[in-house]
């Protein structure tokens, strides 16, 4: 695609701006900011990736992954302020996801160990893990707030903190992972995944594109379930003190 064609595609930005102005929706400013930001960010990433791919140096790959983890943590931590040390719990989760997925992919030689594969797959996994983390933290906090009496009931009967939040933890894990599992059931029928569409548009063989898309879908399943479980089991102990008392003030102050 040439820069002229890309410029012409700005007509798709003008349509929502004109509609917003006509109907007084007030979306013009946010639309312009979104377009400017995404253009700058993506072009910057494009140039950086170009440089990293050509340099063939693993240091740059690692730096890119660290940058992704920092950005994902910064974004997700706002949803878990009631959980002590949430920043490090998120960092541990993202690093674990990265090592697990890349370890299997590279260890089993499913993909070659080059920046061209490692960086985009890492981006998809960490990004997905971030969204899952936000969904999980939202749901887990809400479950704890709504079932405080159940938590205290189980503690008062001599249950452990893990037993006291078990149901809330399971509900939050299920609720945050179900969208990933459900969306995969209709994959290819309702929507063509973005990565696959991109590859096809770029001229790749559709069967080859499907193979890579399937690989990503399988990886997303692991990422979703592992993120929610890991974050859950890292988070719940901080809601109790050493006398096994539920620190509900932390949830209420959210």
């Amino acid at each position: 695609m040439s820069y002229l064609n890309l410029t012409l595609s700005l007509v798709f930005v003008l349509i929502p701006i004109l509609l917003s102005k006509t109907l007084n929706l007030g979306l013009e400013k946010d639309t312009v900011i979104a377009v400017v930001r995404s253009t700058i960010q993506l072009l910057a990433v494009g140039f950086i990736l170009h440089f990293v791919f050509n340099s063939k140096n693993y240091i740059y790959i690692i730096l890119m992954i660290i940058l992704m983890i920092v950005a994902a943590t910064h974004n997700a931590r706002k949803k878990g302020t009631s959980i002590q040390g949430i920043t490090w719990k998120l960092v541990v989760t993202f690093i674990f996801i990265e090592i697990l997925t890349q370890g299997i992919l590279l260890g089993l030689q499913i993909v070659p160990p080059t920046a061209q594969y490692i960086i985009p797959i890492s981006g998809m996994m960490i990004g997905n893990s971030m969204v899952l983390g936000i969904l999980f933290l939202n749901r887990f906090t809400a479950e704890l707030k709504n079932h405080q009496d159940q938590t205290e009931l189980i503690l008062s009967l001599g249950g452990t903190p893990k037993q006291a939040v078990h149901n809330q933890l399971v509900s939050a894990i299920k609720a945050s992972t179900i969208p990933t599992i459900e969306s995969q059931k209709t994959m290819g029928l309702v929507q063509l995944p973005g990565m696959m569409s991109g590859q096809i548009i770029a001229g790749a063989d559709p069967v080859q594109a499907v193979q890579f898309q399937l690989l990503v879908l399988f990886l997303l399943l692991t990422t979703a379930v592992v993120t929610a479980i890991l974050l859950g089991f890292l988070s719940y102990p901080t809601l109790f003190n050493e006398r096994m008392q539920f620190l509900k003030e932390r949830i209420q102050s959210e």
Partner: protein
Amino acid sequence: MEAAIRFEHVNYSINHLHILKNLSGIFPKGKITTLVGPSGAGKSTVFRLCNGLRSANTGKIFIHGKLITDYHPVDLRRNVGLALQSAPMIDGTVLENLQLPLQLQGKKLPESEAKHLLQLVGLDNSFLHHHANDLSGGQRQKVSIARTLVNRPKILLLDEITSALDRVSQQDIENLILRINEKFGTTILWITHNLQQALDVGDYTWVMMNGELVESGKTSLLESPTDDRVREFVKGDGTN
């Protein structure tokens, strides 16, 4: 008089709110002690401290002569059972609720034992497979008490368990508590807003106001209080 629970200069604050102020006193072993006083006096907080759901900021609490912090929280809570006013139920049948305390220990309560507990609290066996959500307020309270008894606690804390019930259900539960106290020698602490109930069931009474223990002793103190504030409170029939 042997103390089941002893408070020594206990203070408890939360969010800069001083809830218990230098509280000292005892709950006699094997007796029924009622806690009365206006709302916000700190009565429920006393229970949460005894059951270990909260810890005092300063001061000492002894359970059967042993410092509360020397108990493992799980052992403490199994020995000092707490029945709450709201009688929270887990989502499931009456049987599943009765099985909960042992399930938490990886054990299973036999159905025959569950039936025996239901009989003890005056509920028919047919309730065993009813969903907990279908129970009336009185039935829930009875199941809640039966569930607390599964751990065979030496001390039973009852937090306003009859306040939302009609007179007949109240009397049912009063008789039940008297039976439990008599049959098992369980020490019972009972928060109530009903002074007549305190007089009917209590051996001893604590009158609490504004986080302080204003008067304590034999329940008959409610008939002739020495403290002016308690006299005013009793005159208002415990409702102020």
